[in-house]
């Protein structure tokens, strides 16, 4: 096995770890861009992620050079990297000299950058496009097939991990909300029973007592209920 293949497999393995273990998104994406420049025919790489409200953010790059950052086009809001991140389609620019017509503002930065070509890979899973992985080269021409395929694979693994982590976070929030809602409803019923016995009234009358007190003290009925059954409040 060649060192390139070994390196590729190691990077795949490290990315795949994020599918089962907790990870930090920024660390993951830095691993991805560093891996790309080490393994593939790329001089530099950068990742854009689409945030809520569809604004784009550079999350990782192999260089702090302002030319690279500018080229990731967040500032001007147009160009191949932005297009890949928003459309979910691969955008290949084999010669960065010929972009003036399509992306005039981007062309200015491209000219200054010193990079010769660019290959923008969308980070997507089915209908979800979360950003783009962008490979910059110092020679013109298309990125070779093998590298393009392998880079897309790495991007796909990273994308799945990020989506999975987001889903898990949403799930935790949903669980908490649902549990709180259930607890609130249960405690109201318990308090109805408590008051029904202690005041020798029926459930509807007990509920009215709770509701009246809740309104006058401007508290949720569930909070008043919790106080009643805990003995903190006698109605």
């Amino acid at each position: 096995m060649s060192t390139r293949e070994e390196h590729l497999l190691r990077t795949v393995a490290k990315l795949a770890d994020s599918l089962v273990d907790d990870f930090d998104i920024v660390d993951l994406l830095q691993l991805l861009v560093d891996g790309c420049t080490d393994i593939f025919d790329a001089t530099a790489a950068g990742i854009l992620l689409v945030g809520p409200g569809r604004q784009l953010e550079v999350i990782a790059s192999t260089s702090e050079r302002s030319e690279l950052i500018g080229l990731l086009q967040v500032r001007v809001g147009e160009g191949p990297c932005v297009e890949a991140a928003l459309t979910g389609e691969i955008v290949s620019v084999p010669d960065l000299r010929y972009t003036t017509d399509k992306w005039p503002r981007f062309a200015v930065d491209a000219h200054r950058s010193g990079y010769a070509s660019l290959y923008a890979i969308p980070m997507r899973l089915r209908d979800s496009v979360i950003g783009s992985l962008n490979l910059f080269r110092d020679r013109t021409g298309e990125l070779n097939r093998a590298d393009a395929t392998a880079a897309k694979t790495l991007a796909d693994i990273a994308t799945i991990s990020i989506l999975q982590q987001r889903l898990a976070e949403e799930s935790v929030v949903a669980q908490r909300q649902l549990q709180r809602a259930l607890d609130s409803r249960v405690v109201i019923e318990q308090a109805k029973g408590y008051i029904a016995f202690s005041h020798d009234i029926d459930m509807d009358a007990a509920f009215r007592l709770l509701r009246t007190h809740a309104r006058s003290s401007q508290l949720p009925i569930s909070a008043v209920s919790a106080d009643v059954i805990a003995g903190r409040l006698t109605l």
Partner: protein
Amino acid sequence: MSMGMSLPGDDRAAFADALARLSAARHGDDLCGPFIGAVQVTGAAISTLGRPLGSETICASDRTAARIDEIQIDLGEGPCWDALSRRRPVLESDVARTTSTNWPNAREAFRSLDVGAIYSFPLYVGELSVGAVDLYSDRPRDLTARAVADVTTLAEIASRRILQRALDDVEHTEDGLPDGPHSRREMHQASGMVAAQLGIEVEDALLALRGRAYSTNRTVAQVAEDVVARRLRFDV
């Protein structure tokens, strides 16, 4: 289109029909019926179980199906609980002769129901546990691998439906628990009453209710009803 009558070559139509009904189910629509039509069982019940949705039966196609779930919720054990915690169906083709040692009290209680087979499928969405759908056949019977796959697919859809309904309702808590044919609201009210009677925590009051039900061979609902109706007091 067939609605539960299986003819040769027709079985995919029954599944497709069930799929369509579940997918289109709106708030209040019956979620149990599609399962019966898809795999030709006698009855079905669906319950939410444990955290975070609480243990409550959502629908039951007949009294037996409702009892199958009520027994397991009252006892806190049974194939539906196992299915949910393992995230895998628990298939008892001949429940009277089961070799499972996992739920002895539930098995004993099932005897009085005279059911042949019980199939419990978990309901969950990712990490979030929803509950289980229990199918029963009045005669002992194996479920085919195809049927298991079909029910699993339907269960996934039902899980999302139930979860979505619960999330839609998450802000509306001021009216307490909803009423309904299988509602356990009275159990919680009874817990509050017993807590006041004995001066104990509501959790302990609930245990007392369940213990009384178990030892007198009645359902928790029956004991709760007696407490709320003032026919039964715990402090005398």
